[in-house]
C-alpha cells in the first residue's frame, strides 16, 4: 500500500518538507497504527508494564521502606475497601513515583489525574471520566471528551455510572477467567482506585468553597465501597481550610531524605561505586546544608563529579587513600563557588564557553572557574532592547525630579553633586533611606518618562559608537531614529512578558499605567557593559 502512495503523491496544497519526506514512506502504516491504538481496553486502567516484586519495589526506593509498607498496609489485601488516604511530603520526596510503582507491584486498576495538568474542575472531571469510559481523544472524535461535565452534580452522576460499568466488567472478566482457566490470569479484584496528584493546587481553584470539600467527601457521597481514593499533596492536611469542614482522610507522611538515604540514592546505577562513594564523602555534606532535594542536588553534583574525575586517566579505577587525597585537593577549591551556584541550571552556551575556558586555562594554574561568567550575560537581547532595559532601570532607580540634571545636553552628571561631609543626622537619614529602598523596592514610572530617557541615552550611545567607529553592530540608529519608535513599543511589551518590566497599578488620578523595572543592579551593569554604556554616570547615589 505504501508503494502506491509513492507513485502518486497528489500534493495539491503547500506542505512542509517534513510532511513530504514522511508522507510517502509512512502514510500507509500510520493510518493502520492509528486504528489499532484507537481502541482502549480495560487493560489501560492498569500500570501496563511487567509487575515487580516487593523486594524490587523496596530496592528501587532506598529510604522509603517505612512509607511503602504503610501505604501497602493501608491499601490492604485484594478486594478490601479503604477510607481515603492522604499522602503528603515536600517536593521531590518520591510520593507520586512510589504510589505508581506500588500499583504496578499490586497490579490493581487505577485512574490517575494530576491537578497540575487538569487545572480547572471541568478538565479534572472530564479527564477522570475519559479514563473510566475508556475514551481516547484523537482526530476521529475531534479531540473532545466523552462527556461534557462542568458541575459537580453532573460529575457525581456520571462517575457513579462509569464506575458501576467498569466494576461490572471486572466482575465479568474475573468470572470468565476463573471458568476458562486461562494462563497469565490477572488478579484484578473488584476495587478501583482514584489517585489525585498535586492536590494542593485545588485550594486555589475557587477559594475552596465547594470544590475541596466535594473532593474530600467524594468517597462518602458515592457510597461505593469498591472505590478507593488517594490524594497526594505537597502540604500537610492542616493547611487545607474550608468553611464547612470535611471528614479528614487518613494521613501518610513522606519525610525528606536524610543524608544516608541520599547517598544510597545517588549510588544507584553508578558504574564505579568506590570512586563515586569517595566523591560523595567530600561533596554531600556541604551541599546538604543548603538543600536535600534530590532533583536539585543531582544537577549540582553531576557537574562537580566531572571535575572530580578530570585528573584520572582511567575512570574505572578504584581509588586508594593517596589517590583520594589527591582528588580531594584537586576538587576542593571548586566546592565553595559551586555551593553558591547550586541552583543555577547552566544554559547550553555557557557550558560550552566554560569548556573552552577550561582548555585555555589548563596551563595557567589554578584559577576560579566562574569569574569569567560574571561579566557576560548568557541570554541574547537586541541592542534596542538593552537600551530599553537600561532606561527602565534608570527610571526606576532615579527620582523623577532629577531627570533634567542627569539627562541634559551636556550628557550626564559631571559630578556637580559634591558630597559634603556627612553629619550624624545625614547618616541617620541615609540609613533610613537605605532601609526604605530595601523595603519599598524600585519605583514606578510612566511610559512617557521611559521613552524620554530612552531617547536621551540612545543619542549618547550613538555618539559613543560614532567615536569608536565600529560598524559591525549595525544598529541603524543614526539613520532613522523615528523608525525605531514602533520597534521600541514592541520591545517594551516583550520585556514586560519577560518580567524585566512589570506593570503596576494605574494611578487613579491620572489614569495612566505605571511600570516598574525588576532587574537588579548587577544585571543592569552587565547589560550596560555589553553595549559599552557608562551606566554609573547616570545612577543616582544617595
Amino acid at each position: 500500500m505504501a508503494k502506491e502512495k509513492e507513485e502518486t503523491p497528489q500534493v495539491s496544497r503547500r506542505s512542509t518538507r517534513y510532511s513530504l519526506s514522511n508522507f510517502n514512506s509512512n502514510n500507509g502504516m500510520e493510518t493502520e497504527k492509528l486504528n489499532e491504538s484507537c481502541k482502549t481496553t480495560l487493560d489501560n486502567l492498569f500500570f501496563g508494564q511487567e509487575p515487580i516484586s516487593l523486594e524490587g519495589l523496596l530496592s528501587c526506593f532506598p529510604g522509603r521502606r517505612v512509607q511503602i509498607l504503610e501505604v501497602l498496609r493501608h491499601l490492604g489485601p485484594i478486594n478490601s475497601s479503604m477510607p481515603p488516604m492522604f499522602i503528603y511530603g515536600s517536593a521531590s520526596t518520591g510520593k507520586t513515583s512510589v504510589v505508581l510503582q506500588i500499583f504496578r507491584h499490586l497490579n490493581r486498576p487505577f485512574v490517575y489525574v494530576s491537578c497540575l495538568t487538569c487545572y480547572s474542575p471541568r478538565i479534572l472531571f472530564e479527564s477522570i471520566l475519559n479514563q473510566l469510559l475508556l475514551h481516547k481523544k484523537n482526530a476521529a472524535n475531534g479531540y473532545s471528551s466523552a462527556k461534557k461535565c462542568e458541575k459537580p452534580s453532573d460529575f457525581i452522576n456520571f462517575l457513579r455510572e462509569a464506575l458501576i460499568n467498569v466494576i461490572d466488567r471486572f466482575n465479568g472478566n474475573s468470572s470468565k477467567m476463573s471458568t476458562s482457566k486461562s494462563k497469565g490470569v490477572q488478579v484484578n479484584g473488584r476495587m478501583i482506585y482514584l489517585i489525585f496528584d498535586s492536590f494542593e493546587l485545588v485550594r486555589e481553584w475557587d477559594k475552596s468553597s465547594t470544590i475541596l470539600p466535594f473532593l474530600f467527601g467524594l468517597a462518602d457521597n458515592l457510597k461505593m465501597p469498591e472505590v478507593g481514593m488517594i490524594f497526594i499533596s505537597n502540604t500537610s492536611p492542616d493547611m487545607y481550610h474550608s468553611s464547612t469542614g470535611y471528614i479528614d482522610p487518613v494521613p501518610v507522611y513522606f519525610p525528606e531524605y536524610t543524608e544516608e538515604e541520599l547517598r544510597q540514592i545517588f549510588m544507584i546505577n553508578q558504574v564505579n561505586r568506590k570512586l563515586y562513594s569517595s566523591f560523595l564523602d567530600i561533596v554531600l555534606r556541604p551541599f546538604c546544608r543548603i538543600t536535600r532535594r534530590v532533583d536539585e542536588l543531582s544537577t549540582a553534583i553531576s557537574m562537580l563529579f566531572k571535575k572530580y574525575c578530570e585528573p584520572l586517566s582511567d575512570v574505572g579505577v578504584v581509588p586508594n587513600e593517596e589517590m583520594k587525597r589527591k582528588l580531594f585537593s584537586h576538587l576542593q577549591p571548586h566546592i565553595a563557588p559551586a555551593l553558591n551556584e547550586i541552583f543555577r541550571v547552566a544554559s547550553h552556551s555557557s557550558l560550552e564557553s566554560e569548556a573552552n575556558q577550561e582548555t585555555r586555562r589548563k596551563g595557567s594554574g589554578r584559577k576560579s572557574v566562574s569569574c569569567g561568567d560574571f561579566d557576560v550575560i548568557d541570554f541574547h537581547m537586541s541592542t534596542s532592547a538593552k537600551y530599553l532595559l537600561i532606561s527602565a532601570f534608570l527610571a526606576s532607580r532615579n527620582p523623577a525630579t532629577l531627570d533634567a540634571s542627569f539627562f541634559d545636553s551636556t550628557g550626564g552628571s559631571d559630578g556637580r553633586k559634591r558630597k559634603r561631609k556627612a553629619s550624624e543626622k545625614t547618616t541617620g537619614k541615609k540609613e533610613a533611606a537605605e532601609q526604605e529602598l530595601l523595603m519599598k523596592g524600585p519605583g514606578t514610572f510612566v511610559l512617557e518618562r521611559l521613552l524620554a530617557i530612552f531617547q536621551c541615552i540612545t543619542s549618547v550611545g550613538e555618539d559613543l559608537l560614532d567615536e569608536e567607529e565600529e560598524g559591525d553592530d549595525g544598529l541603524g540608529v543614526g539613520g532613522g531614529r523615528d523608525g525605531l519608535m514602533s520597534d521600541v513599543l514592541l520591545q517594551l511589551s516583550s520585556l514586560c512578558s519577560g518580567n524585566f518590566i512589570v506593570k503596576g497599578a494605574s494611578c487613579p488620578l491620572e489614569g495612566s499605567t505605571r511600570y516598574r523595572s525588576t532587574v537588579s543592579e548587577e544585571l543592569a551593569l552587565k547589560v550596560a557593559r555589553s553595549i559599552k554604556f557608562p551606566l554609573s554616570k547616570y545612577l543616582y547615589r544617595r
Partner: protein
Amino acid sequence: MVRENGSAEEALNLLRSRLCNPNFIFKPLSNSPDNNYSKLKFLVSSSITEACNNSLLLLGPRGSGKIAVLELVLSDLLLEYPDTLSVIKLNGLLHSDDNCAFKEIARQLCMENQLLFSKMASFDDNSQFMIAMLRECGLAHKTIIFVLDEFDLFAQGKQRLLYSLLDAMQSVTSQAVVIGVSCRLDADQLLEKRVRSRFSHRKLLFLPPSMEDLQRLLEHVLSLPVESSLPHDYTVEFNGKLKNILADERFKEIINTYLESDSTVNCLLRFLFRAVSYMDLESGFLSLENFKTALSNIQRQPKQECIKDCSILELYILVSMKRLEVKEQNSYNFNSMMKEYKIIHDSFKTSDYYAKNVCLRAFEHLLKRELICFTDNRGYNQSIEFRAVKLLVSSVELHQGLKSYRSCPSILLKLMEH
C-alpha cells in the same frame, strides 16, 4: 499454617469492610430505646401513616452518624411500607444552585417513577414538574421524603429552593417530609423569615457517644462473628484476645487520649481502621501494639515535621525572620531578612554564608513548604524580594523544631533562646 494465613487475611478483610461501612456501625445504637434512631423512625412513620407533611433537622458535628442513622431508618421504612415511599436526596455542596437542585429533583423523580428525563428542561419546567408530582403523590397517598444534606449550604443566598419546597408542601395536597442534615448547630437560624415560618422547628441532636456506648461499639465492630466461614477455634481465640485488650487499662488510656482531640464516631473509626491495618497477618490476632502505633501515626505534628524537613540554610532564614520580629519590625521582606542574615554571619562568623541567589531559592522553598507566606494578596507587580512576608510558625514551635533537629548548628539555638 497456610490455612491460618488465609483466615487471618479473611478476618482482616472482614474487619476493614465493616469499618468502612457506616450502616454496620450504627446498627447497635438503634437497639436501645429513646435514642435518635427511634425518635426519627417514629416521626417519619407517623407522618406516613397520618398522611401529613413534616419537616425536621438533624444536627450534630461531622462524623456523628446523622446520615448513617437516617439511612438505617429509611431502609427499615422502605421495607415496612413498600410502594408508598420515595426518597429524593440532595446535597448542599452539589445542588446549592437552584437550577441544579431542581434538575436533580426532577431527575430523581423521573428515575423513581420510570419517566423519561429530559436534560433540556428549563428551570420553570422542572419546578412545575416537582409541584405536579407532589400533588399527584399526595392524591395517591404516597409520601416523598426529601433529604437535604449540608442544609446550611442551601440556606445561603436567596433560599429559593427551600421556599418553593416548603411552600408547595403547604399549598398543594401533598405528603412530603423534608429532613435537613447539617453540621452547623444553628442551621435553623440561617433561614429567612418566610422560610422559617413554614418550617417546623423539630431538631434532633446527635451527640458524641457515652463511654458505655463506646465500649459496646468497640466490641460490636471488632469481634469476629461466630457463624462465618472462618474456623471456629480461630474466631474464639481472636475474640478472647480482643476482650483482654479491651479490658486493659492502657487500652482505655489510648482511647481516651485519642477521643480528647475529636470524639465523634467517625474519627474513632479512622483510628480503628489504622490499628486493624497494622494487624500482624502471621499471628492473625490484634495486639495492643497495633493500637499504640496507630495512635502515634495518626496524631501528627505537621509543623514540626515540616521544620525537620528544612535544610540548614532554610533554618537560618527562619531564625533571621524570627529575630526581625523580635526587634519589632512590623513588616519585613526578603531584603531585610538578608540584612539580618548578614548581621548574624558577621557577629558569629558562621560557616554558612551563601550568595543572594541561593538564599532566594531557599526562601522560595520555604514559601512552598508554607512555613512563611506573603502578607499581601495582590502583590503581583512586585518581585519576590520586595514583597512583605510573615512567619507561619510560632516561636515556640520553631524552638522545639530546632531542638529536635539532627545536627542543628548551636548558633541557631543560641539565637532562639533570647
